[in-house]
């Protein structure tokens, strides 16, 4: 699904992120035991965390909205994912919670803040990398 695409996209640019003196941390919201499966699917070997409480998602001012998921593309992808056996149980996280991206410099300055408005609304990598300069 989309979140996986996002991780794959970020992973491809990990060298650029490192070149900018930064480190990448992926934060999901399922239970910790789902991280391993996520790693296998995305081949992502970097830092993966989860926050089932969603407290950090709220603090990052990210959206929580079921309606954001209801677009034809998102639904089609969900149906396909389900048909392949990727059953999305509640342990994988909160289906209504949307994502986003925050870049924080040492000292705490927020260099970049992207609030996803729905599936597929990912932070443009060019903007993320510019925030590292």
């Amino acid at each position, binding site marked *: *699904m*989309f*979140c*996986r695409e*996002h*991780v794959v996209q*970020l992973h491809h640019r990990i060298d650029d*992120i490192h070149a900018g*003196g*930064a*480190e*990448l*941390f*992926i*934060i*999901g*919201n*399922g239970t*910790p*035991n*789902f*991280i*391993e*499966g*996520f790693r296998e699917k995305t081949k992502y070997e970097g830092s*993966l*965390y*989860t*926050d089932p409480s969603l*407290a*950090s*998602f709220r*603090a*990052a*001012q*990210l959206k929580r909205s079921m309606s954001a998921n209801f677009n034809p593309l998102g639904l089609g992808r969900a149906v396909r*994912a389900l048909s392949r056996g*990727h059953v*999305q149980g509640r342990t*994988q*996280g*909160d*289906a209504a919670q*949307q*994502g*986003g*991206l*925050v*870049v*924080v*410099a*040492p000292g*705490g300055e*927020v*260099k970049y*803040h992207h609030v*996803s408005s729905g599936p597929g609304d990912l*932070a443009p990598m060019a903007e*993320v990398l510019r925030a*590292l300069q």
Partner: protein
Amino acid sequence: MQSSALSELTVQDETGQPTRLGDLWSEQTAVLAFVRHFG
């Protein structure tokens, strides 16, 4: 938003061990990618 809203919160690694978010940007810039779910 202010990073102080995030710094004292904790996230868990795959073994359930807590990590303080503020520690992630103590020595380098941190790119925090919040993903919708582990789908």
